[in-house]
């Protein structure tokens, strides 16, 4: 894991640790811009579950996919039918 050793600690990591919050921008039921992700728990076309540290946010629907993502944020697109918080 040379790559991991070379990489400096991301600034976003410190920031996310400090605020430790989740921010979601929901555009209708077609797109969600999600910030505050700590990792993907489940990913398929009917369900996407994202770990935020304190809880898991579960998106259900049809044809769900992640349009783009980085370490702390991602864009979910597809036909969203429900958003659920799993404590």
């Amino acid at each position, binding site marked *: 894991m040379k*790559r991991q050793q070379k*990489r400096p600690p991301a600034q976003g990591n410190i920031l996310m640790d400090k605020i430790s919050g989740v921010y979601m921008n929901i555009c209708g039921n077609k797109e969600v811009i999600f910030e505050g992700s700590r990792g*993907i728990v489940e990913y*398929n076309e009917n369900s996407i579950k994202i770990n935020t540290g304190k809880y898991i946010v579960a998106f259900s629907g049809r044809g769900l*996919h992640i*349009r783009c*993502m980085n370490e702390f944020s991602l864009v979910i697109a597809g036909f969203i039918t429900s958003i659920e918080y799993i404590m």
Partner: protein
Amino acid sequence: MLIVKLLRWIFGYFDFEIRGKFPERFLNLAVRNGLNLWNMRGEKEELHATAKIADKNTVGLFAGKTESEFIIEKEHGLPYLCRIYKSRLGLLAGLIIGVALSCWLSGFIWNIEVNVPPELNEYEIRDQLRELGFYEGVRYDSDSIDNIKRKMKLNDERISWVSINIFGTNAVVELSPKISAENDRDDNKNKKTVSNLKSTADGTITKINVHNGTAVVEIGEGVRKGQLLVSGIMEYNDGTNVMADSEGTVYAKTSRTVTLSVPKEYSKAITSDEYVYKREFSFFGISFPITLCGNPSGEYYKKESKLKPTLFGNSLPISITEEKWQRYETKKLTLSSDNAKKLLDNRLKLYEMFMLYSDQRTVISKKSKFEEKNNMYCLTVSYEVEENICEKSYIQVKE
């Protein structure tokens, strides 16, 4: 987005599939390590995504770490194409030759457009340009173009200004004609000039009407061609002289004889329906014959037409020239006396219309004689005319 797509294509990218129980683990690992993935589609125990070609090994490593199967679906972009055509050296050579040929050919002039004013003939100008070494297929050289412009102005007195504009491989020649000396004289009319009036024909004076100048002839006096009629130098009683621009009319009775003739035997060309076609294909200034026949021997008329295709308003350096040769026979015919009379009468009418009748000329009497001599029909017409015989003669005055 277009630039992003273009950069991705240049650096290359690949579609892959991750198969395993937990493909989400691969995703988490990838994003935490800054791996750039896009087009992610998750299915049951499957993940489809796209990444840069440079990250292929890293993707494989992470797939191994998450105990998933890593399958490359398809590769895209320039590095992929280079790898495919690596063994086909001919293709690369063709590409290099094509680019080099295109660069080399763009240094030539392939189309010449000549914009000439009505005073000048386009074909004459094209011939002159060809003689000076500027034709379709010549290599572009700015120094030689300057020389051609200079030489054209020197060689042809009718041209006052030449411009050759080069647009890629097209040349546009613009010309401006010289203003003739007669026009200059017209311009100078308003300036103060001194002139006499002289006779244009022999005759007897019948009427004198002088507006400016001094008449030196009288009514009834006989005059010769070129004789002074009205002087531009006016003398006053006190002995002083004034120079003027003479103006006026002097009418005189003059006689003129016109002889029109037609040969008794004449030859006439009678065309037949026999045609010979010759076609030539011209490509980048080099001509190739399409038809294999040579120039026909015998009596033929030649008509030439040129077909030049254009693309988006620009002429292409391709043309097809067609020569149509039509056969004719020359027959000797004899003109009858009646037909000769009709022909000569028609010619005489044209002569009278254009040469004789005018505002300042009246025909008093006319005598005509038709005769046949030396295998010719001749019509001799004598006119007695009253006409204005004045002609201006300018005097140069040095101050």
